[in-house]
């Protein structure tokens, strides 16, 4: 059994009389600790697929199973908890909560998981050291560069040791140097911690670093 099983997944949007097939009968399996890039032209359904796997959006038909749990069978609060315990998200930009420092942004997830203060402090401190953020921990997001913000966002996605990190164009707003840095970090964490990474991108250089490519076109795998 694969870690992520997407079976006959479709997502249709209706706009006026048009039916937009954002995802059209997609079936994929992703194994644990895979480092996978989701590629395809604009409008091909990358974001839609990531949102469906992250249980941010309900598919029109089909089923997603993660570690044996069928997403369609979860209620509202279970979905919140599923995201909290099993999924880490990194969005394209403005990931962080502006009123919390870098440290607090990451700590927040641990608080949702009801860790006590000392545990939270230790965990965040050691992760920040590991990924070289220790000097930025007291800064607010507005005091960080785009690349630094994305690294904090990755730290936040990882702190709870999720099974899967979903990243929708995490490097889109970064220059090539910062993109490289971010990818190296993701790669390192994938290998060391055995976390599955699934990220979408338009960037050739980013694609090249993926271990596996999934290509989408018009909502279909190609």
């Amino acid at each position, binding site marked *: 059994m694969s870690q992520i099983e997407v079976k006959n997944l479709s997502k249709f949007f209706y706009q006026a009389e048009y039916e937009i097939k954002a995802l059209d009968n997609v079936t994929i399996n992703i194994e644990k600790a895979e480092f996978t890039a989701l590629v395809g032209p604009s409008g091909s359904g990358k974001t839609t697929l990531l949102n469906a796997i992250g249980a*941010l*959006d309900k598919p029109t038909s089909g089923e997603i199973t993660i570690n044996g749990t069928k997403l369609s069978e979860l209620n509202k609060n279970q979905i919140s908890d599923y995201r909290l315990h099993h999924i880490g998200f990194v*969005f394209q930009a403005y990931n962080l*909560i*502006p009123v919390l420092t870098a440290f607090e942004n990451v700590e927040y997830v641990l*608080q*949702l998981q009801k860790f006590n203060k000392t545990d939270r402090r230790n965990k965040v401190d050691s992760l920040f050291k590991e990924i070289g953020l220790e000097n930025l921990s007291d800064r607010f997001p507005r005091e960080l560069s785009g690349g630094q913000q994305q690294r904090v966002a990755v730290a936040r*996605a990882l702190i709870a040791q999720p099974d899967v990190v979903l990243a929708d164009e995490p490097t889109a707003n970064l220059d090539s140097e910062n993109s490289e840095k971010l990818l190296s970090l993701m790669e390192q964490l994938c290998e060391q911690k055995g976390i599955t990474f699934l990220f979408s991108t338009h960037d050739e250089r980013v694609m090249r670093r993926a271990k596996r490519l999934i290509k989408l076109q018009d909502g279909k795998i190609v």
Partner: protein
Amino acid sequence: MITQMAWRNLWRQKRRTTLVMTSAAAGILGMIMYMGFLNGLKSMMIEGSIESGLGFVQIRPDDYIEKRQSGLTLPNADQIIKSLQTLQKSSSLTFHFSERTEKEGMVRLGGTMRGVNFLGINPETEKNVSSFDRWLVEGEYLKENKSQDQNSFRMIPIMMGKALARKFEVEVADFVIISMGSDNGNVSYKTQIVGVYEAISDGIDLSTVLLLRSDLLSILKLPDNQHSPEYITLSTENLGDTEHLKTLISETLSSVQNIKAATYKELQPEIVRLLEFSDQFKSIFYLIIMTGFALTLLNSILMSVLERTREIGILRAIGTRGKAISLTLIFESVLTGMLGCAAGVFFGGLLILWLHHSGLSLVAFARGMEMMGKAGSVLYPWLSAFDIFICFFITLSVSFIAVLYPVRSALKLTPIKAIYDR
């Protein structure tokens, strides 16, 4: 961390938050001032009426209580007075009483004339039930006539209010003519002013002239069997004991026929009605102020939800439950309201405290006030702990209610809608 986030969110839009807090503070300040004045007005009316003779409780003939028939004498007065004296010794509630006879009449001097109410008192016991002795500003308080010789000539002593004395341009030791109707037709007497008092309102000053009850009875030339007082007025140390006192008196005198005890509220129902009316008006006033504040608050929180749409989406996406989002907003709202309220209570409280000590002259409105009853002309606003509690309680409730709609719209935001703005 929810509280921390809420607190910092508040100060993201410093100007807006300050503005909303100021509006809460201004509203509360208005409420506090209003409460303070109303309290002061109430005290003034109640105390003014009570201290100038109403007392806490009066014992009157049935016909007065039921039909407001005046000029009656109290039946079985001797028996009543004896019972009261016994009760004073045995009861745990300390109270005082004094007998009175009232008569309407006229004060005259030269061409000046004024209708007044002659209050016949027993000066020693009267001290305990009204404040005329303390209000004395010139001359001396009335003294019981000790002279045994009924035939020796003696000028009838009276005490009048300062405002009335000014009208007649008289002072202590001057003479005025008093006249009133008696069984033998209209009688007039030359009297001497021995004391001038200044009550808390000109209304009392102008209308009440005090003299000895024994003198009043002899002026009226009433037969001996009608020398009973018209009524007995009673007071205790504490206005709150009024009902208790009435019950005690009613029980003690239950065997006495044709008399009743009544509280100041029953005797002057217009006071109670005025107080009720002012309370109703107070509620309307609060409602208006608080509706304004609620809308300001609602608008501000709604705006901040809109501005933070993406953030809320992210929070939801990383696993925050709706409850925590709601709590953050509620906390922000309540904090805004409470801080504003605290500021309003603080400044309003200071203002009331200051006015409480300096007093607020109502001379400009004094004429109108007289008509409202026996209200005075200097108002001392005050606040009770309960009033302040009410301010906080109302603000808390309003902050809570006003945030419900923004909370609802925040909860409707799915992460997808919020993050991708679709």
